[in-house]
């Protein structure tokens, strides 16, 4: 059974992550939407290609290119992506055209690009990669589903190099719907403290984070991806128990964990889940990140990016600390995420 190593990461987010793991994160508590720090797209695409592609596709290509480059990998045995909402820029565009023009005068471009697997297939076409190509769309476990799939293939010794990524994009219209539905905090209602929030809904954003997974440990290795488990529904009171069970299945106890990375997103209604787990791991260093990445269905991929960098740098950035507990060294990290009380995931990484 081959091991699975994270050997390269590329991240496009609301932080300057394209240039590497930031030493300082930009914080803005007054907004309900963290704007993307746009990469220099012209370094990656011709202006013509760039115009044709939606934001999510471009970000996915930038992030995947960075991940592969860092790991020094050019040939892939599988491309697996996750996206909660899919290519909503193009689906919004096509749907608006249908409604506004009463199903007439339509062109296929945005329909073609609206398919959920557009990012994964565009990467395949660009690389001429005929390998396995899957896309998962399951809310907050879209990215973790992709990880589960990749891990299954490493465990079965079927692959050596697998590209895995999480991508979500936002549009103005979907943003307005999410405010109406109470998923995004109302405009001008800040400042928003993500930790200790007393209000419902979250601060949103968008992004793309890709991981180059390989069966071999190299100079560029961040961590070993040990295990992932997802569960659609979990009672609040059972979160701690479930986490311990997950660790037990990996022959570990909570005392073996050097840090927990929690998906706190400032929604008072559902952050209880994280608080519950935080209580269970009260003497463990705790990390949060959605105050710098924003919430989106695949924000947990940003969480894995943070966790991987903690292991690589052996340090938790001050701005990401939930508590003041420290460890002399970091070997094993547990990540926990959920969104609106469903789609829970536990991820274990190690060095």
């Amino acid at each position: 059974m081959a091991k699975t190593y994270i050997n390269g990461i590329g991240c496009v987010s609301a932080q300057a992550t394209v240039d590497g793991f930031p030493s300082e994160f930009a914080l803005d508590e007054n907004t309900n939407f963290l704007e993307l720090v746009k990469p220099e797209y012209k370094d990656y695409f011709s202006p013509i290609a760039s115009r044709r592609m939606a934001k999510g596709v471009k970000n996915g290509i930038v992030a995947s290119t960075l991940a592969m480059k860092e790991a020094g990998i050019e040939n892939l045995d599988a491309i697996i992506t996750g996206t909660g909402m899919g290519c909503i820029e193009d689906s919004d565009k096509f749907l608006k055209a249908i409604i506004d023009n009463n199903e007439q005068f339509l062109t296929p471009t945005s329909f073609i690009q609206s398919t959920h697997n557009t990012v994964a297939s565009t990467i395949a076409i660009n690389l001429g990669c005929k390998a396995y190509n899957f896309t998962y769309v399951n809310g907050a476990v879209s990215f973790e589903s992709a990880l589960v799939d990749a891990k299954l293939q490493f465990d079965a010794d079927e692959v050596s190099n697998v590209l895995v990524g999480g991508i979500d994009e936002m549009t103005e219209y979907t943003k307005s719907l999410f405010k109406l539905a109470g998923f995004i905090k109302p405009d001008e209602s800040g400042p928003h403290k993500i930790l200790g929030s007393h209000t419902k809904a979250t601060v949103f954003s968008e992004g793309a984070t890709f991981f180059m997974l390989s069966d071999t440990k190299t100079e560029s290795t961040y961590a070993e991806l040990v295990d992932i488990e997802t569960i659609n529904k979990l009672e609040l009171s059972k979160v701690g128990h479930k986490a311990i069970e997950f660790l037990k299945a990996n022959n570990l106890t909570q005392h073996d964990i050097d840090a927990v990375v929690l998906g706190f997103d400032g929604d008072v209604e559902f952050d209880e889940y994280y608080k519950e787990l935080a209580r269970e791991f009260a003497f463990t260093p705790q990390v949060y990140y959605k105050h710098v990445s924003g919430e989106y269905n695949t924000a947990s991929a940003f969480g894995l990016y943070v966790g991987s960098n903690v292991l690589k740098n052996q340090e938790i950035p001050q701005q990401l600390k939930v508590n003041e507990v420290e460890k002399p060294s970091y070997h094993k990290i547990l990540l926990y995420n959920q969104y609106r009380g469903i789609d829970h995931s536990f991820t274990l990484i190690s060095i």
Partner: protein
Amino acid sequence: MNKGVAITGMGIISAIGNDVEENFRSLINSEKGISKTDNIPTIHKDEIMFGEIKKSNEDLIAELGLPADNNFTRTALLGAFAAKQAVEDAGIRDINEYKTGLINSTSVGGMDTTEKHYYEYFENPETVKFIASHDGGDVSQKISEVIGLEGFVTTISTACSSAANAIMLGARMIKAGKLDRVIVGGTDGLAKFTINGFKTLMILTDSYNTPFDNDRKGLNLGEAAAFLVLESDEIVEREGKKVLARVSGYANANDAYHQTASSENGEGAFLAMQKAFKVADLDPTQIDYINMHGTATPNNDLSEGRAVARIYEGKNVPYFSSTKAFTGHTLAAAAAIEAVYSVLAIQNGVVYPNLNFKTKMAEFDLVPQTEIKYKNIDYVLSNSFGFGGNCSTVIFSKN
């Protein structure tokens, strides 16, 4: 030969029937389900026909016994309807008794509802509940609620090959011991979004679709949902379960050619079939029936036909047909309903007719089976291809 993963239950709703029996009866009686639409208010309703399920959302809500304030989309309703049947068919009483998962697939997700209320959301507070029902994951969450499942739930969206990939992942998870039991399949409701999308691509026929015919003009869009229950051999043995058939081979490959068109030589399809034979440990000549993707678009049937011809170069091509003339192209659900048809083909020893076929394609010497044919069937190969060059093959075998 690979023993494969046991299939112990099936559920289906499509334009040719509301359960497994009705679907089978339509298939053997050559009764297609292509018609004008009753449910979709599209301006194209007089020019094109669909594989439409005649049950309305209200019918489905009543039959599922959902509360009036539910926020199920049509895709979720169809999915829940078929998944419930599959669970019952497998004789499952306590869904969470074993480590059970749901691997659903969809391409349109809740688009059927989003397109109805898109601008209305801001005017009609009653519609706001549907904003949360747009994404594919919500469909699977709804299905798991209806069948009471708590565990591994995910959704695959690789366009028209989606459900084949759901079956594949499910079989792999059972084999790896990650799950004891998994419900796999797909669902897609008809939507103006896809109707107009395929229309702009100019691949919709104005009549009945004619797979593998030289004069084929395109596809009829359809809607459907179907699910299979896969179980580990331990459960099958312990509970003395009846095994309907097995999933013995599968593979996914990418054409890496074009976002919406297949390469002319069907490279992705060829690779998917080749890899699936390897997984199943079978020789292509052992296949008794191929259930083709056969959408009846000029591009698909040429590309798929060439790939099949390449696989069987110098050998006899098995009996083959596309069932899309019965059901229309049901997108993400296509591979799921065709999985049910494949299992029924094995159980009943029957090759379904490829309806509406008249003239052999000029490019190759492939003629589909046009009349119903009864014969022993040990292995069925089922192809499904989707946008993004996504090519999948699943091989089913007799227990």
